[in-house]
């Protein structure tokens, strides 16, 4: 058995690992599918709108859509214009979708912090959202409706269940129906793969190992003549323990933010992400650690010895050990190779910061676009709200009643009505 078969047989590796080009292809396809579904929605809405206009309003309406209940206002206004003359909305681009997803991942992090959930719950929720939207366009499912469900599902999959009633109490205006409504959508949307391999365990194990050897822990005597370890200690002088402890805190920050907002979970293995976060936190600690464990001086004997110990401790660091074991088999060239990778991964994580800096105006612009895509009834006078996972559920065409979500939203809505396309509807509202 290959040492890493456990990871290579995990769903994270088999179904959720992609290189950058595949990742962008998938996103393009998802975007295209979302665009198609918006077109279909608009087409349906047009049919409905024109049937509502003509005297022969009894024309069959697509069977699965509940009978539209146009308000007198909308039908009368719609009667004055030809729905066919209104152009299809401009759809979102893949990069706009991604921007929105990452924005909502940041919101998800905030929401998790309201509850002070442990990092694994937070991280799982973020990965769920990212994975869900890898295959489901934002145009079909608006992330804002999904994030409470996703966070609640993550508490359950990470064994940190809290009763839904308590969960809802902490978030204003959240109802348990709203959370449960999307649960199957989300669970099926992440393909029922609830087990997310986070770098967190590797991180805790690695830090434990560093603190143990630097503190001259239990096997201090056998390590004292390990040249790699001596080099590591020198590099982190004068207070190696303190250095590692400081790095630990900073590293956790990277793991619970930058790592989640970027694509590193798709492209790197958990230990690589851990090392990259450590590298960002303290270059010397990470490089010294890698040199010690995988450099020229790392000895084969150590790996074997270490392994036995691990069996007893069950501390999380034995993935590191087994890799060291493999390194022994394949020769000592691992450290330089690993360092390059770690640097690349770190770079990707840092680039995620861009998403925090995206101006609010840009987000508003995208959301406005999305709003138009998803609400043909508003612009055509008939049809249903699309997306947001509301398929099949009827929503009153009078969207003011349909989206009481929060003030910000209604503000956005008002703004959306002022946009050039919305404004072209004479007599609207």
């Amino acid at each position, binding site marked *: 058995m290959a040492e890493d078969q456990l990871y290579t047989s995990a769903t994270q590796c088999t*179904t959720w690992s992609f290189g950058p080009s*595949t990742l962008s292809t998938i996103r393009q396809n998802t975007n295209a599918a979302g665009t198609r579904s918006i077109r279909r929605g608009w087409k349906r809405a047009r049919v409905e709108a024109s049937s509502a206009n003509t005297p022969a309003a009894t024309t069959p309406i697509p069977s699965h859509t509940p009978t539209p209940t146009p308000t007198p206002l909308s039908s009368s206004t719609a009667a004055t214009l030809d729905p066919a003359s209104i152009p299809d909305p401009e759809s979102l681009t893949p990069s706009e979708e991604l921007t929105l997803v990452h924005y909502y991942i940041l919101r998800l992090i905030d929401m998790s912090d309201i509850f002070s959930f442990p990092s694994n719950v937070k991280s799982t929720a973020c990965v769920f959202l990212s994975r869900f939207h890898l295959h489901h366009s934002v145009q079909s499912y608006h992330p804002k409706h999904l994030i409470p469900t996703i966070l609640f599902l993550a508490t359950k999959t990470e064994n940190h269940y809290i009763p839904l009633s308590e969960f809802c109490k902490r978030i204003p205006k959240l109802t348990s129906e709203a959370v449960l409504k999307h649960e199957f959508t989300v669970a099926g949307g992440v*393909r029922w793969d609830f087990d997310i391999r986070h770098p967190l365990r590797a991180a805790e194990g690695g830090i434990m190992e560093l603190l143990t050897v630097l503190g001259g822990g239990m096997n201090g005597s056998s390590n004292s003549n390990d040249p790699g370890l001596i080099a590591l200690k020198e590099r982190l002088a004068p207070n190696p323990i303190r250095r590692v402890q400081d790095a630990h805190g900073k590293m956790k920050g990277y793991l619970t933010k930058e790592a989640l907002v970027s694509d590193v979970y798709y492209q790197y293995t958990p230990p690589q992400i851990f090392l990259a976060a450590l590298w960002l936190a303290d270059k010397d600690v990470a490089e010294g650690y890698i040199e010690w464990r995988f450099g020229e001086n790392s000895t084969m004997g150590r790996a074997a010895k270490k392994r036995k110990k691990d069996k007893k401790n069950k501390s999380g660091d034995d993935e590191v050990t087994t890799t060291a074991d493999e390194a022994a088999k394949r020769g000592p060239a691992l450290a330089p190779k690993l360092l390059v990778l770690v640097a690349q991964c770190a770079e990707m994580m840092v680039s995620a910061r861009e998403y925090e800096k995206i101006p609010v105006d840009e987000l508003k612009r995208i959301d406005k676009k999305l709003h138009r895509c998803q609400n043909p009834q508003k612009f055509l006078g008939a049809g249903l709200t699309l997306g947001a996972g509301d398929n099949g559920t009827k929503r009153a065409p009078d969207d003011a009643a349909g989206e009481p979500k929060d003030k910000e939203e209604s503000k956005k809505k008002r703004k959306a009505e002022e946009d050039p396309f919305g404004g072209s509807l004479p007599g609207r509202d």
Partner: protein
Amino acid sequence: MKPSMFGCRRPEIYFPQLEAFQHNHPRFQRHHQNTTTTRNTLAMSATAGSSASSAANLIKRTLPFGNGHNSTPLPENGDASRVLKDDSDAANPTAKDDSDNSDIEDPDDLNTKTKRKYTKDRKVGEGAYAVVHLGHRLATATEPAVPVAIKKIKVNTEFRDGLSMDAIRELKYLRELHHPNIIALLDVFSSKSQNLCLVLEFLVCDLEKIIKDSSLTLSMADVKSWMLMSLRGLWWCHKAFVLHRDIKPNNLLISGSGVLKLADFGLARSFSDPYRPMTSNVITRWYRPPELFYGAKFYSSAVDIFSLGLVFCELMLRTPFLPGNTDLHQIELICQALGTPNEDNWPGVTTLPGYHSVENGASVKERGRDFFMNTFIAAGEAGVDLLMKMIKLDPRKRCTAREALDAAWFSQEPYPTKPANLPKKVDGKGIEKVGSDLKRKAGELFNNNDETTGRGKKVARKLDFGGGAG
């Protein structure tokens, strides 16, 4: 979690090759025909984590793991859903325009596709928690029909917060654990009424049924074979950092070809997260280890080993070794049979939150070899050695699954029986029994309708969902 930091950026595709390797590699093939020979072979098979029944392989190969997991091998640059879409578009040229049912990115549609692959034949069990149907995967142009068990988990019976924790745990772990001695989860879909359906490998019988059937004679070679297969499955769970937490004979299911598989992961959880406490209210009482009765919040794979050790006893005695009526009675039985835990035989035991000391007179010394040799003479010296290591009072002294697999007992004569030659239930009742095993709520020993026998109450305490400890 044991990923490699090795090899650079992940390759875009991993796994078709891997699968092919497992199915075709001569080492595995050879091993099928020769399960029982030298110690080395056994150890290797354990480590290889593959092999065993070719039937299992057949199922694995022909029954894709749902949602493009391994049926639709990942295309060179794209993913499974992409393939699906292309297919549907090709099949239905109008799809692109407005046909509503071509909305491939709709998960309901993927779900429908999965659902359509199976048909339910007949109901074989129903409980408060789940309904089990015998069914089969419909034959396709290239693949024959394959029998499956469809476990429909009822939503919202007691638990009003959506998907139940048992269902989530079972899904989470069975999606990840692939091993010939672990029940295979073939697919997942949701029914119209938002019930979750798990499509599981079809298994005909369970170990409890075999133990209880007095018409069957179980030889030591048979016991050895079942122990070997259970340990292999357990080894893989533990290697993947998963605790089963409900090992008992009726969770050890037997396939048509005689291969034993661990089932029911409703209480499973991952372990060895530093500083994270776990609940001690797990494992059916008769198989629960002493540290859990003492309220240990940090425990390890040794709990499963203890349970399996008691199953080992039960296989030889043909009756449960420690059938306690209450939790207190259970500790009493453990103390009498194995010895009273104290600081000498289990350093630190007195610091466990639920520990109670016994009066000096009642204290029993930890049983030595002689006691076990007397009771389990049939196992022979090597067998007793293994048993003693599995049911040590002190969890740190118990062997790991890997060490157990290396035990001399397995490489001594009589060699383990080949799965196909193991004693089987011949009447048709096994299927009903498996149906009721699958539908049981995790942690229950018996089904409600067994309460007439007076044993229904001896169930594991309910999990405490409150503290995030589960």
